[in-house]
């Protein structure tokens, strides 16, 4: 019987690596997806001299693809510098897992976001954050590349669903080439808000649907 998940995904789901908490953690982050309800927590131990991850653990309140990605991405991050860890992409994690079903991509992106957020948490705690950049159309577009179109499992920008982005006075307006009653409209809307709202100079996110 072919499962929708690869053998590697199932192996990591059955026996997830690096599971648990680090009690005297140097950094931590919890990321959640309102769309599917999954959550993932990531904990880091960092060598302050080399800025290298010496230990990493994760916890998951989620489905198989969330657990498996948490497992593989912590394996990939261990021993890497913070800069290297931040550069790990969802695509690399997905490839290492032998691929993921398109509809499950967002649960898996969450684990990658969790790692990045934990690294960011370390940087913030240790005064390593560089100057805050103002939000521009390009910044928004970059973030929207992390919002998946669940129908095909590719991001909104790549699937050409983003018609227009406007940034003015703390309000970000996104126009999507999608009917408002599309089956995933509510999910996409929530995920956009989740990605854009945390930007330091954004007060409001407005999403409009065409068609």
């Amino acid at each position: 019987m072919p499962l929708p998940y690869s053998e590697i995904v199932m192996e990591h789901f059955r026996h997830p690596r690096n599971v648990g908490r680090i009690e005297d953690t140097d950094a931590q982050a919890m990321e959640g997806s309102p769309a599917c309800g999954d959550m993932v927590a990531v904990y880091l131990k960092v060598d302050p001299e080399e800025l290298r991850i010496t230990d990493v653990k994760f916890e998951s309140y989620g489905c198989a693809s969330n657990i498996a990605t948490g497992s593989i991405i912590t394996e990939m991050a261990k021993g890497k510098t913070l800069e290297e860890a931040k550069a790990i992409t969802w695509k690399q994690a997905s490839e290492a897992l032998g691929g993921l079903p398109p509809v499950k991509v967002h649960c898996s992106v969450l684990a990658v976001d969790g790692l990045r957020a934990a690294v960011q948490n370390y940087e913030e705690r240790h005064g390593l954050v560089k100057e805050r950049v103002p939000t521009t159309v390009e910044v928004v577009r970059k973030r929207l590349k992390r919002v998946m179109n669940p129908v095909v499992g590719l991001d909104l920008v790549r699937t050409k669903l983003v018609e227009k982005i406007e940034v003015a006075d703390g309000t970000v307006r996104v126009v999507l080439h999608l009917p408002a009653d599309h089956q995933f409209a509510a999910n996409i809307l929530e995920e956009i808000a989740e990605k854009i709202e945390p930007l330091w100079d954004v007060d409001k996110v407005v999403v409009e649907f065409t068609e």
Partner: protein
Amino acid sequence: MFEDVIYLDNAAATRLDERVLEAMKPYFFDVYTVATSQFGYSLGIDARDALDDARARVAVGLGATPEEFIFTSGSTESSNLALKGVAMALGEKKGQHIIVSRIEDFPVLHSARALEKQGFQVTYLDVDEYGRLDLDQLREAITPETILVSVQAANQEIGTLQDVATIGATCREKGVLFHTDATHSVPRVPLDVRETPVDLITVTAHLIHGPKGVGGLYVRKGTPLAKWMDGGFQESNLRAGTENIPGAVGFAKAVELVTPEETARMQGMRDRLIERLLQIPHSRLNGHPTLRLPHNANASFRFVEGESILLHMDMRGFAVSTGSACFSRSLEASHVILGIGGNHERAHGSVRFTFGRFNQDRDVDAVADAISDVIEKLRAISPLGKE
């Protein structure tokens, strides 16, 4: 390879009973013709007799006459015909308002939405924390424009039974047609149209160890219903298409094999399983404690996710179902759990267990032990519920 699987998803599909298959066989190999009129050839008349006989045997279980029962391809078609058929028959004559409950299964819910797009007005009635319909709200919702009320006899996920008799009486009093989707209840929870005022009933064979692809619709004599599957004059000219005679014969046999003793045995297994499930910390029952399907148990477990539970259960040889958004094709959390006032989290960790004829008493402890262990393991890796 699946012999060792303990199958507890009997509300989705059931294993065919061999006795049903034996009853069907002659209508594949010997009497394989269409049902002809009495002026046709002998085989066709035999086929006609078999179909009439099957119809009478299924109808009698509902207290109906054979003329009031038509065979369909299953409950999805039956409910589509009921809602759209009444809408087409009465929409222009009487009114354009339909009432359904919020927790109907998709055939009714999506038929109602489709009619909404055609300009019909639909009221979605609330249910209480157990999934029981608010009868006062129903009374208030009926207007002179209302043509149909459709409320299920039992819920597909949480197993809650509705007070079909009172709902029917209310509709009768107000002069409104009443359809009930009894896919999950009839014949285990009997429904008799001589006692219960109901005009249309959706039923199916595949959840009582009958074949897939055959169901039926009870249509009370005189109920206005428009035909929308056009073609020949089959099924009292309400549903065109060559009759599925082996299916009809199998359906009749499946109905007859359901006994009160068997249903009581399932209820015993259900009650013991519910007791075991509620011993798991941070668990709660979904649905009504007593007014529920005899073969349905459904519980939510906090801090863990349904698809993960389901996959771990599968690896241990158990087939169960979940209302988690992660598991659904649409990525939407169960509308039933949300409808009974639950949040996404409760849907996220909900698991449904449904018994069938081939389950044995020992399955109860086996599945309860397995799920307790799976939940403990998943909670150990969850960031929630630790403090």
